[in-house]
């Protein structure tokens, strides 16, 4: 396994920005990106002329053409010496931060603005190709809702799934959204485990309240070196402690166990590199497109044994003052999924907590966070990309 390129802990996040998730913002992804940039400039005291590194994700709503990043920086008045699009789905935000860290360590740039925006209320211009358009969608196997319905069913068959455990995760995250003013207003109402159990089936055995709701939104962070942050007099910063990424885990296996995933590699790897064991994790900010993904990650990262996820969830307090605070701002499932920028909701919440700015949902004395990403629906293996990052206050 490669060494930890973040071991000297000299790459830091000095600011975060986020717009409120809305079902219909009336804005384009480019306009939402600008909103976040303005927030980040105000927080750092920088001007757009000082931004030399810029990273983004592909908005489903604007990337029917292949020159999006150029047009975006032109709109924002940025002269980029390093321009990065990362397209590993829900792993792209952490992927951008890690790639920015590498570019900073190489001395290519001084500041990386990693800004992610999407506006699914606008026409969906992204198209799928290859096996997805040829062998998957024409059969009726259309997208994540079905892939995760199959995963939920396969898990239940292999280990026995206790639906009330998923309900408990749904309630914990919903409580976070109620306290998060940037969450979708429609979702800022408390729910009970019974509400979860009684929600209608969408891809049985998966329920409506297992799933994310798509919305418009944007978020971002500024990444720089510790040396530069100190020279700027930055008071609050978050240090990157470790990162691990894997795409297309176990590729030469045509009948893989869907519960052997990249997380069994990147979870322990990121923790080891940061010198942590699962019980040392102060809070967990897992990418959440469907609740079953949270259960699988708890097992595969090593918070509990395989197949014991339901019981672990039922005996763990996930509130901000509990055993293992989880997606304290609601995660995507309760705050809304801002299209392909959605993973940033969880990343920004981790940074906000580590800077001590989470208000009524603040985790007391928090020193570290484990943040993850899941990317891309595959041809029923599990998913395409898995990433994990440890951040420290």
């Amino acid at each position, binding site marked *: 396994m490669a060494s930890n390129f973040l071991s000297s802990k000299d790459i830091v996040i000095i600011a975060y920005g986020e717009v409120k998730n809305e079902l219909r913002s009336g804005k384009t992804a480019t306009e939402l990106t600008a909103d976040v940039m303005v927030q980040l400039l105000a927080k750092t005291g920088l001007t757009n002329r000082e931004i030399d590194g810029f990273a983004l994700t592909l908005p489903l709503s604007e990337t029917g053409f292949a020159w999006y990043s150029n047009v975006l920086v032109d709109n924002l008045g940025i002269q980029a010496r390093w321009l990065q699009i990362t397209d590993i789905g829900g792993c792209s935000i952490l992927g951008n931060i890690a790639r920015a860290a590498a570019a900073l360590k190489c001395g290519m740039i001084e500041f990386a603005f990693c800004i992610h925006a999407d506006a699914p209320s606008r026409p969906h211009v992204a198209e799928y190709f290859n*096996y997805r*358009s*040829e*062998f*998957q*969608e*024409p*059969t*009726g*196997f*259309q*997208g994540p*809702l*079905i892939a995760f*319905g*199959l*995963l*939920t*069913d*396969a898990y239940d*068959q292999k280990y026995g799934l206790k639906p009330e455990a998923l309900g408990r995760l749904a309630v914990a995250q919903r409580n976070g959204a109620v306290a998060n003013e940037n969450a979708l207003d429609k979702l800022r109402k408390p729910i009970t485990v019974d509400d979860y159990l009684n929600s*209608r*089936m*969408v*891809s*049985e*055995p*998966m329920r409506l309240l297992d799933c994310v709701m798509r919305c418009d939104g944007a978020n971002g962070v500024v990444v720089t070196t510790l040396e530069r942050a100190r020279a700027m007099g930055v008071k609050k910063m978050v240090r990157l402690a470790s990162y691990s990424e894997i795409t297309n885990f176990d*590729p*030469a296996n*045509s*009948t*893989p166990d*869907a519960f052997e995933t990249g997380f069994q590699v990147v979870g322990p790897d990121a923790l080891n590199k940061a010198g942590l064991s699962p019980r040392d994790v102060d809070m967990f900010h897992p990418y959440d497109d469907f609740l079953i993904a949270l259960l699988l990650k708890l097992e595969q990262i090593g918070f509990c044994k395989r197949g014991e996820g339901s019981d672990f969830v039922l005996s763990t307090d996930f509130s901000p003052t509990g055993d293992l605070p989880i997606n304290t701002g609601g995660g995507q499932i309760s705050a809304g999924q801002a299209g392909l920028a959605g993973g940033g909701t969880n990343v920004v919440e981790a940074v906000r907590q580590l800077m001590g700015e989470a208000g009524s949902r603040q985790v007391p004395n928090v020193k570290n966070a484990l943040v993850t990403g899941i990317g891309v629906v595959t*041809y*029923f293996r599990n998913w395409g990309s898995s990433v994990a990052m440890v951040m420290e206050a």
Partner: protein
Amino acid sequence: MAQQNMAQEQMRPVPVPTRTSTPFWDAAKRGKFLLQYDPAAKKYQFFPRPVSIYSGSDKLEWREASGRGVLVARTNVQVPHRGFEKLVPFVLAAVNLEEGVRVVARLIGVPYDQAKHGMKVRICWEELSDGARMFAFEPDR
């Protein structure tokens, strides 16, 4: 409005073959389900790819599959996607074929509560527009 509904119903997506997949779809028209076979690795793969996932070799053969397999996961699809509005709810099944590959497709003729893990199924074909055919599964009795 009626015309518009009809137009929407006809939008079930139809596969567009590539150089790699053309033999598969040509055989599908004759009711044959082909798999790529890597003679070096002695293994099959699905979906069709330009090289072997086992060896990286482009020396791949096409072989007809038995079409028989075992159901390993299933879901009852209740949210209609484009082109499938009239078909919901329907069962989508992940099946491990005898040749050691996994195929996901509709399971036809079996309601969700009778679609059991481990049940034996075989390939069948659905007629799409323009003479195209799409693979599905039915019980192998």
